[in-house]
């Protein structure tokens, strides 16, 4: 049985109840910190119905974000070889973030679930300014037909929203 500690709230009783089960920890150091799960801490914060301040104490200080909030989530979907440069670019061009989230399932639908699209910054050959390039590498025999489908089904409807700062390139393995 794992040790557990939780704040319990009852909306009708103005008392905060704290429960802890030490039994599983009897042979382990008591100062051992529980794992810090960002999901658990945020969930605790969001789920509470009363005593907001007390519940917020559960959020560790290192949960405070300083950069683009959704970048870690985006980086879980895309391969990001130069994360600092990409995050900085996206921070300046935040309209691209929603587009990248939107594009990801379309990419997987067209090139299969094994594809890992990669984000890079390149100089636009026409404009001479930096743009974000989504590099797609696939060995599918109909990879270029898939690119046509992707263009027709999604990209051409969203190209305006990218304001010339996003493009997709397909490469064979």
């Amino acid at each position: 049985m794992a040790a557990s500690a939780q704040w319990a709230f009852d909306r009708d009783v103005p008392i905060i109840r704290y429960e802890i089960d030490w039994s599983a920890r009897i042979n382990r150091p008591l100062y051992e910190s529980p794992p810090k799960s960002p999901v658990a801490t945020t969930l605790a914060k969001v789920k509470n119905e009363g005593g907001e301040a007390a519940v917020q104490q559960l959020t560790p200080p290192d949960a405070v974000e300083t950069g683009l909030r959704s970048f870690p989530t985006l980086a879980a979907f895309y391969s990001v070889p130069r994360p600092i440069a990409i995050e900085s670019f996206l921070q300046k061009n935040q309209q691209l973030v929603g587009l990248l989230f939107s594009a990801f399932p379309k990419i997987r639908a067209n090139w299969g679930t094994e594809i890992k699209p990669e984000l890079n910054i390149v100089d636009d050959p026409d404009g001479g300014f930096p743009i974000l390039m989504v590099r797609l590498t696939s060995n599918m025999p109909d990879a270029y037909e898939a690119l046509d489908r992707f263009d027709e089904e999604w990209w051409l409807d969203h190209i305006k929203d990218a304001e010339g700062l996003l493009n997709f390139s397909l490469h064979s393995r």
Partner: protein
Amino acid sequence: MVEKTKAKISVAGFQYDGFFGDPILNNQRLVPLLQPLYEALKTWDIRPANVKYKNPVAANDASVSFEIASGRLVLSISHTGFTLVVVNADWSQAELVTQLLEACWKASEGALGIKASRHELQIGMTVIPEGKSQQDITRTFAGPWELRPTDELQMCGVILYTANGSLVVDRAAANPQAIFAKIVHRFDGQTAFPEMLKQLYDDELWLGNVLKLEFE
């Protein structure tokens, strides 16, 4: 027009709860939902290791959780419905959230023949105003209290309950200089996800207008 104070949202979480109506207490009835849901979530890179089986105690505890994007989005199934928790949430993920939840309910309808009876969406966020204190921002809320000369106001938190949800403004415990805000909005089962998220976005704008804050 009143000038707004710029405010940075340092931490934000989103939670969705969707309810089946009557709980499905028979475990075996819930099982057929798992495979179609897993298939649907493959689009968002779900792997077997991201599927976690739980030991629920209550019917509304998670039975199975699907951890997406290294656990930054967690979709859980319980005997009473679905829960989606998003950490580091922002509005750029609105379409992602919509697609995930639509996939959930499509799988539920296909595998169980059950549609949502109601939905509840909530945002919790820590807001850091630039150049204004909590006292300045929340002073107007304290008006009805008729503070005495010896009562030095530091911050006035409020909880507002409406017919379809609630709104909390409080001092953020993690950062005493910041404001914690939580918005809860409930919808009936027929409301479409883009409409619900739009309403929640409008709630956030409303909160910003009341506090005279411009969220960055």
